[in-house]
């Protein structure tokens, strides 16, 4: 579903991604772990072209993201096309980023109506169903400021799901939460994984990765150091840097 080939990205003189290759099969859950500054978030952000690439390419469902190949060069796509691609890629942020002036239901229904052209009554009906799915039925009329962090993140997930995305990207979805609220968000992620949603989750929740991930990717200094099933990467890592990292976080 997702093919990442030799992706490079620098901010100024700092090279954040140094040739990342990764393949995410449809219906699988990939957890990306690694120390802060290792390029995890940047990797996620190049997947929906929130960041431009310096080199390499990203393909989702057979379509090159953000660029078009022409005579051996990659030309950046016009906004309109990038917008269409992004509409099919769900993104969940660390800080939720719910629209503050809209209610939970309006947050979920806004993009389907405005971007996909779904009729309002249909979008509202689906929005209610999604809010119920993340366990927040009854809170449709609440503004983000009236919700706890965990509830906001669950609405943010419902908002991403409303676009019926091919893939869902999570950027440290529980890092901004109080510890007692982490569980409710991870429960939603578990349900999605069980339903066969293709997901890439950047996370510090090693326990969650061990339980849910099909593939765990250990990223360090902008490179994939090790990847494989959690039973290998998290239990019997082959690389000393992975062992070192796990020893620090576990």
């Amino acid at each position, binding site marked *: 579903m997702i093919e990442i080939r030799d992706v490079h990205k620098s901010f100024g003189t700092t090279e954040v991604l140094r040739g990342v290759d990764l393949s995410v099969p449809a219906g699988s859950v990939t957890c990306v772990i690694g120390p802060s500054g290792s390029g995890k978030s940047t990797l996620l952000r190049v997947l929906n072209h929130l960041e431009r690439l310096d080199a390499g390419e990203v393909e989702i469902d057979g379509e090159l993201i953000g660029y078009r190949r022409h005579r051996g060069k990659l030309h950046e796509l016009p906004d309109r096309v990038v*917008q269409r691609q992004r509409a099919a890629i769900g993104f969940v942020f660390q800080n939720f980023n719910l629209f503050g002036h809209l209610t939970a239901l309006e947050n979920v229904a806004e993009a389907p109506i*405005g971007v996909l052209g779904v009729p309002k009554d249909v979008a509202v009906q689906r929005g209610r169903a999604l809010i119920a799915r993340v366990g927040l039925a009854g809170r449709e009329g609440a503004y983000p400021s009236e919700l706890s962090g965990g509830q906001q993140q669950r609405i943010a997930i419902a908002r991403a799901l409303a*676009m019926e995305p091919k893939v869902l990207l999570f950027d440290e979805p529980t890092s901004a939460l109080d510890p007692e609220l982490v569980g409710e968000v991870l429960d939603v992620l578990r349900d999605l994984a069980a339903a066969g949603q293709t997901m890439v989750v950047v996370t510090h929740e090693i326990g969650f990765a061990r339980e849910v991930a099909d593939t765990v990717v250990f990223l360090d200094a902008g490179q994939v150091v090790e990847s494989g099933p959690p039973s290998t990467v998290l239990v019997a890592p082959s690389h000393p840097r992975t062992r070192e990292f796990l020893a620090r976080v576990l």
Partner: protein
Amino acid sequence: MHTRGTVVVFALRGAACFLLPFNGKTPPMSVLGDVRTRPVAEIVPARKPGRVVTAVLALAAVGWLVHAAATGLDWGVVARYFTATAVVDGLVTTLWLTAVTLVLGFLLGVVLATFRLSGNPVLSALGWGYVWLFRSVPLIVQLLFWFNFGAGISPLLAAVIGLTLHEAAYAAEIVRGGILSVDAGQVEAARALGFGRVRVLRRIVLPQAMRAIVPAAGNLLIGTLKGTSIVSVLAVQDLLHSVQLIYARTYEVIPLLVVATVWYVIVTSLLSLAQHHVERYFARGVRS
């Protein structure tokens, strides 16, 4: 239910220990060990004799002013002209001139603000240059420019153009400030959902920027209302010019200026009231 009742009673008793003056008996329960052994002394706030003096002086000054206004002014003249046709016509001109300036000024202001914030260096420089130029030129100078521009520009058109261009420079800065006050994460979330730039601005950024824009815009609007009086130099018959025309004939200068003043105060008060309600609307979703 039973347990909840107990908790309430308990809480009330607890609060009572802190609220009621201590009567010498041991309180029913206290977390402070000292309260149990030492009687609680009454607390006396410091006296502020200076306050009384300044208050009396201020009231005396206000009283003198009210007295002077009540006796020294011919209120009969004020009342006679307050709703005179010429004055009301002038008021209507002032009001629609203000409204047109506000609407056109802010439309242009939004465009200029987006220019200024655009990634395109030429547009950005253009936005900056406009604000720089039109904030530098005094309104009256600009009005005289348009007035003397030549054929086809009536005094009224000169007034509309001058006021709008002036307003737009300030509106642009107010809108820009409002846009910058919105968290960048809001834009990013909208972009990630596939929103186009214009939709992000219209549906996500501007509605939230309004919270910062409205108070400043209210200020600007009231300034504009009073600023329209400058167009009287172009012989546009606004509120001020209308009363000027009357007192040029009758020499009742002060009562007629009071007529204009009272109207300006009334309209400004109504605008302040409206601003309060608009602010409350845009504060929705924000925890106070």
